[in-house]
Each structure stands twice: as structure tokens, then as C-alpha cells.
């Protein structure tokens, strides 16, 4: 009895194995790359939108495919911006990379210098049968030219703006009204407001006045509000460790350590932003700064009325732009690249950008949309959606340096927190980062 049951067992195993091997070899060749079957060009689009943004994206893709029978765009969600970027770089060496993707502004210079992305100016002019685009209709501060200081270099068009944002203030209207505080316009007012709004019970802070992830983007805003610059005009020297940079970081250090009116949410990158959002929703904090991208999410889920405002200024008002640009990858076949252009052009057309911005918190990227009667009416109804657009008057640029992303991710982002959570001084931390950046730029 033993023997036959063992044998039966063995046979079962063998058949299971065989089946699995057949299954896996059968599904071995999953083609996600582009192919040209029956005249339809397949375009692989890698995106980093999750949640509701993802749904909107997929709807748009479906709509594009329906209206463009010769092109089939296939979208894949790849994780957050930085994960997706890593995958794009890695995959660009393989035959399975995407034809179109979108990347944060700070990563554009390196992608361009590394020769990974296709110039788009030809397509924009309508060369080779491509559909032309009215570049003048793009909101200047959001377009490639308006986002970068080219440092004297000649750089053609290679990226189209898609989901663009600025940091804005979100505040709990009731809390501010109850405390008799109006949204702060300057750093001084911010510190004062935070002090008034913080509620403590013994050594427990029941409500924080202010919460901000100690993140590159916000510090960049503060740096420019203090009249500083990241790099010199020729982009060869780092200047962020000078007085302005120190004042910028110093403000946050003061509010966290001395005033104890600001909460520093834990986690890196967007994890900290999530914490800030959730704290705001649960009424644990009165004011936060975060991307306008979260406007829909916060408005829908807040149990209170929320208001938005410009970031306060210091020597001046200043905000960086955020979000991503579309790019077309250079290493793909011509047909794919041309089809990819059609897709990104279509996605940034007034109809689509309007739909996108209404369903998310991002800004429409076209002047004609912002100035249209429909949107004007929309903004009257939804004044919070206007804040980011009006704030563009104070937009500052990024230097078009191939080292920009590395300076941000490797030298600054992990270290900005140091003076806030340890005893390190702002001068020493920024000084070291600046020295490292100079070494990097010199190479």
C-alpha cells in the first residue's frame, strides 16, 4: 500500500511539474514592448500615478486609443516617481523599455545629457507628418523653457508638461478663525501663527500649528524666498550653503526645536507627505504645505472646510514648480516615437488637460484653458483650485545641470533633516553638502 501511494504521489508530482513548466514557458514571451502588427503601432507608456489619478490616466488612454485607430497605447503603473525612473533607466538598456514615460522636472537634465530622450521640436513643428502643436499656448512657467535656466546652453524641446503643480498652504479654516489668525504672508507671520495655533496639554501636543516634510521641494522654495540660489549662474559652483540656504533651513529648525510649533513627519520622500496629509485630515495640525496635487484628496476627505493660500514670503515670494513632464525615449523605433509624440501631444491638448486638472488637483497647462469661460466659472466655484495658478507669478526655475537630480537625492534630501533631528548645525550640514556638490560639479 505504501509503495503504490508513493508512486501515485510521484506521478502526481511529475505531472504538476510538467504542467507548470509548460505554463511558464508558454507565458515566457509576454510582449509588453511595441510591435507593429496589422499596421497598428503599439506604444508602451510607463506611468507613476496611483489611486484615482491612475483611473483618470487609464480613462484618457482608452479615449486616445479609441480616437486613434492606428496607435495602441498600453499604460503600466510602475510605482512612485523615483522607482519608475530607476526602472526606466534600467529598462532603456533592454528591448523592453517604454516608448513614453513621465518624469519629475529635476531628472530631465540628466536624462537629456545621457542621450536617453528624443528631441521633440521637429514633431512640434509638424515635420514628417506629425501633428503640430501651438507651443505658445502652454503656460510659460510650466513649459520646459519656463522651468529651466539653461545656463547658457542650447537645449531643444524634448519634454511636454503634463501634471504640474506648486506647493501651496492648506489650512483648517475653523482652527484659524477660532484663533483669530489669518493665513500668514511672511515667515514672521508663519512663526507667530504656528505659536498661536499649537495646542498643548502638559507635554502632549494635541494640535500642531504647522507640519512640513523636510523635503527638497519645500526647502527650495524657502531658499529662494530668502533670495538664494542653488547654483551659480554658470552652473559650475554650488551656492546653496550660503546665508540664504542656511536661513531657509534655519527657519524649520527653529520651529521644530525651539518653538516646538512644527511637526516633522517621519519617512522619506512621499511617505512623509502622506503622514502630513493624514495628520491634517485628522485635525492634528492646523496648517500644512503640500502639493496642489492633493487638493481633491484632501477636500473630499476632510471633515472640515479647508482653505488654501500662497506660501509665505521672506525677502520675496517664491515657489518651485513640481509634477512631471512627458518624454519620448530615444532608443525606440521611429514609428513608435512618432506614435508616442501623437500621444503626448494629445494628452496636453486643451480638452485633456482641462479634464485632468478638474479630476485631480493639478493645473491645466494651457493658457487657453485657464482663460476659457468654462474654467473661469469653475474657479469661481472652486477658488482653491485657482491658488496654484495665481501663485505661478512667483515661480522659480531649476538650473539645467545634469547633476541636479544627484544633488537633490543624494546630497540634500537625506541631509536636510539632520539639523532638525540631531544636534548638527545648519552651517555644518549645508556646508558639507555644498562642498560635496562642488566636487560633483567639478567632475
Amino acid at each position: 500500500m505504501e509503495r503504490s501511494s508513493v508512486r501515485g504521489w510521484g506521478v502526481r508530482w511529475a505531472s504538476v511539474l510538467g504542467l507548470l513548466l509548460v505554463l511558464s514557458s508558454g507565458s515566457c514571451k509576454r510582449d509588453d514592448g511595441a510591435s507593429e502588427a496589422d499596421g497598428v503601432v503599439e506604444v508602451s507608456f510607463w506611468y507613476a500615478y496611483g489611486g484615482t489619478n491612475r483611473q483618470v490616466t487609464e480613462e484618457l488612454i482608452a479615449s486616445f486609443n479609441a480616437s486613434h485607430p492606428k496607435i495602441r497605447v498600453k499604460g503600466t503603473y510602475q510605482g512612485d516617481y523615483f522607482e519608475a525612473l530607476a526602472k526606466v533607466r534600467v529598462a532603456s538598456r533592454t528591448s523592453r523599455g517604454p516608448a513614453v514615460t513621465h518624469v519629475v522636472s529635476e531628472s530631465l537634465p540628466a536624462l537629456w545629457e545621457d542621450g536617453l530622450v528624443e528631441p521633440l521640436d521637429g514633431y512640434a513643428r509638424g515635420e514628417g507628418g506629425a501633428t503640430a502643436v501651438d507651443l505658445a499656448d502652454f503656460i510659460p512657467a510650466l513649459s520646459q523653457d519656463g522651468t529651466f535656466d539653461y545656463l547658457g546652453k542650447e537645449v531643444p524641446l524634448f519634454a511636454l508638461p503634463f501634471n504640474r503643480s506648486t506647493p501651496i498652504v492648506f489650512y483648517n479654516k475653523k482652527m484659524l478663525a477660532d484663533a483669530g489668525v489669518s493665513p500668514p504672508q511672511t515667515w514672521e507671520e508663519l512663526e507667530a501663527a504656528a505659536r498661536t495655533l499649537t495646542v498643548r496639554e502638559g507635554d502632549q501636543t494635541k494640535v500642531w500649528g504647522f507640519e512640513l516634510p523636510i523635503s527638497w521641494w519645500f526647502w527650495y522654495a524657502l531658499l529662494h524666498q530668502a533670495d538664494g540660489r542653488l547654483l551659480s549662474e554658470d552652473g559650475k559652483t554650488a551656492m546653496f550653503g550660503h546665508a540664504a540656504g542656511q536661513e531657509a533651513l534655519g527657519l524649520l529648525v527653529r520651529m521644530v526645536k525651539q518653538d516646538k510649533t512644527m511637526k516633522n513627519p517621519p519617512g522619506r520622500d512621499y511617505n512623509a507627505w502622506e503622514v502630513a496629509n493624514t495628520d491634517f485630515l485628522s485635525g492634528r495640525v492646523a496648517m500644512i504645505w503640500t502639493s496642489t496635487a492633493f487638493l481633491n484628496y484632501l477636500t473630499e476627505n476632510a471633515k472640515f472646510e479647508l482653505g488654501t493660500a500662497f506660501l509665505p514670503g521672506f525677502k520675496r515670494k517664491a515657489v518651485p514648480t513640481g509634477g512631471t513632464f512627458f518624454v519620448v525615449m530615444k532608443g525606440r523605433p521611429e514609428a513608435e516615437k512618432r506614435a508616442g509624440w501623437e500621444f503626448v501631444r494629445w494628452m496636453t491638448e486643451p480638452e485633456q488637460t482641462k479634464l485632468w486638472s478638474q479630476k485631480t488637483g493639478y493645473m491645466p497647462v494651457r493658457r487657453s484653458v485657464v482663460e476659457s469661460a468654462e474654467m473661469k466659472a469653475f474657479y469661481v466655484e472652486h477658488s482653491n483650485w485657482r491658488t496654484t495658478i495665481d501663485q505661478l507669478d512667483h515661480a522659480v526655475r531649476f538650473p539645467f545641470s545634469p547633476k541636479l537630480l544627484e544633488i537633490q537625492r543624494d546630497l540634500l534630501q537625506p541631509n536636510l533633516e539632520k539639523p532638525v533631528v540631531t544636534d548638527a548645525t545648519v552651517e555644518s550640514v549645508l556646508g558639507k553638502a555644498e562642498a560635496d556638490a562642488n566636487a560633483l560639479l567639478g567632475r
Partner: protein
Amino acid sequence: MGTQRRGGGARWREALTGYGLVLPSMAVFAVFYLYPVAHTLYLSFFNWNLTGDPKPVGLGNYEALLSDEVFGEVLVNTLTYSLATVAVTMVGGLGLALLLNRPGRVYGVLQACIFTSYIVSWVGVSLLWIWMLDAQFGPVNGVLSAFGVSPVDWLGDPDLALWSLVGVTSWKTVGYDMVLFLAGLQSIPVDTLEAAEMDGASRWQRFWSITFPQLMPTTLFVLITSVIMTFQGFDVVRVMTQGGPVRATTIYVYFIYEQAFGYFKVGYAAAAVVLFFVVLLGVTLVQFRLFDRQRREEAP
């Protein structure tokens, strides 16, 4: 071993069978274990950002690593995390096993509960614990506040963050140690213990002179596998703290991943991999030596 010596032809066949049986496994190891180690060693002498051509830099990456203070921090973090977690889980696991080592349904259920956390994924556990440890509205601080303890910033305080991860990891893996120790305990012959008891040995004495020595092989096995597993810690960091705050929770494997896929410094990451491997190999060999000596001392 008592196998009868057979004639020459049979020996040939035996060898052939032997090679045949190990061949598939060896092929897998050669391609997916040995080759990558060799290739990584090769890559460590270059600078490469995944898109251009690799540039040879000789020992440059190693020099940079050894003089990089971040690397030093990472080493310290990894050793701290690993040794602390192993210590807690081994002591905890043994303690729980001792308490559980009795018959009864209840003990079976309790054992199952404790072991559950081992089999669920790190992804699920990490997200869960971020919530639990939230400084403002996590249940942990909620419970502590009932005892009048002011809120602790478990994940945001650079001095605490790594220990929070030690805690979470211990919580998740103590069940593994417990089950193994339990098995070890239950294979100790009861007669020896009973005899000692009749001779008047106290519980304490019985533990140290009989139980503990007999548990040695189990202990060493748990020690080796636990050290290996904790040195390979990655998921918990990636989901909970992303190496922060200020690199306080950047441990070895996370560091390598960050360098290769975050900053595209593949050569640098490769050099770190080589050093990591050397360290882990050394640590394991030392433990294995102990293990083997134990085995040999125990006459089979």
C-alpha cells in the same frame, strides 16, 4: 559509513549517478549564485550608471567606500540591527518555547498565534506597523498615554528608529525561533531529566546542565539562520523608513539597493556587495565551525 566496497565498474556508475543527481542544482547555483558574485566583483572595478559605458576605476570604489562615513554608519547600523534582533528573538524564542513545552490544546493555539506573524509578508507587516507606531495616533502611543507616558516618536527620532525596527523584526520572527527551540526541547529524552530530578537537581540546575547543552545544535542552527536573515534585512526598511531619518535605518542591503537603483552608482554598489559578502561569509564560517564542532562532539 559501512557501505560495502563494490567493484570498479560499480564505483564508476555510482560516481556518474552522483554527478547526475547534483548537476541540475549545481547548474542553477553556478548561473544564479556564483556567476553573479564573480560578475559583481568585476563590476566593482568600474563606474557605471546603467546607461553609458562602464569606466574602469581600479580600486577607486573600494577607497571611496572605506572613506565614506555613510558606509561606516551603514555597517554599524547593520551590525546593531542584526545582533540586537538575534539576541532578542533567541532569548525570547527560547523563553516562549520553555513556557509552551507542555501538553494541552491551549498551548497549541497560543503557539499558532505566535507563529502567525512569521508567515505573513513583510509588506503587510511594515505598513501595519507604520500605523501602530505613529507618534500621534498610533495605538502604541495610545496605550502608553493611558499609563501617562508622553508620545514617543518611534520612527522619526534618529536615535530610536533603528530600535523600532529591531522591535518590529523581533515581533515578526520570534515565532520562528520559538518553534525551532520547541522542537529541540521536545527531542530531549525525558528520562535524563526525570533521573536528574530524582537525584534532587533543581529546575535551574536541570536546565543548565542537561537542557541547554542538548539544545546546542538547535541553538547554533537558529543563530546562523537568524544572523543571515537579519543581515539580509531589506523589506522592512524599504516600506517603513526608507533608510531614514538621516540614514539611521540604512542597513547594508538597503544601502546597496539605493546606490544601484536610486543613484545609479552600480560600481559603487557592486563594491559594497563584495565587502558585504566577505563580512557575512566570515561571520557564517565562524558560526559554522562552532556548529560542526558541536556535531562532532555529539557522537552520532
